């Protein structure tokens, strides 16, 4: 089974702090994604990556950046955390962009609270 591991289940940070959310997948997947999930809004794509050192903006990239230095690891960075970034963050991976039917495999999520 594919395993996507997010380093923290819960995080509490202060406004203005720099926050790192880490995600690791163990199945040699090409694609990795960061979503945020908010009640009534479903999942919204923040950033994604189809290859090492490659990144593309999703639907709501403002206030975030990402890093993919190794194929298995995809980090989400909040440069200066704000209260409106309080949310559940979900990391996902999938096998190959050319396989359009390749399903997403999700981690268990990180619930971030910014005070």
């Amino acid at each position, binding site marked *: 089974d594919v395993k996507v591991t997010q380093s923290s*289940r819960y995080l509490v940070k202060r406004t203005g702090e720099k926050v790192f959310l880490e995600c690791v997948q163990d199945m040699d997947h090409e694609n990795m994604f960061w979503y945020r999930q908010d009640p*009534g809004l*479903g999942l919204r794509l923040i950033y994604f990556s189809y290859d090492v050192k490659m990144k593309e903006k*999703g639907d709501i990239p403002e206030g975030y950046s990402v890093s993919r230095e190794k194929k298995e690891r995809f980090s989400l960075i909040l440069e200066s955390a704000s209260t409106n970034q309080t949310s559940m963050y979900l990391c*996902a991976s999938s096998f190959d962009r050319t396989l*359009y039917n390749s399903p*997403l*495999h*999700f981690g*268990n999520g990180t619930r971030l609270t910014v005070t």
Partner: protein
Amino acid sequence: AQSVTQPDIHITVSEGASLELRCNYSYGATPYLFWYVQSPGQGLQLLLKYFSGDTLVQGIKGFEAEFKRSQSSFNLRKPSVHWSDAAEYFCAVAWRGQNFVFGPGTRLSVLP
């Protein structure tokens, strides 16, 4: 822009009753279709997927879904709900060359 709708925000059923969760999508091309389930505090787990062929697909945990091209729908069904099915359910759609689009989710409550 492509969109996915799940008309029911919250559904309550009794244990043992049948269940149908609705999903509709926009855009003309036939997409790839998925249903995911999310238990409280957890990530999303893939229930089933449709790519082509038989329009009735079977998934895990006794779920099935039917693709109806004429209605742009991909409804999820289960003949007899168990208390452990209480969760949030997300329909997701992927069009060729595009990222996944998720519906807003339907929360399922199960009465004993």
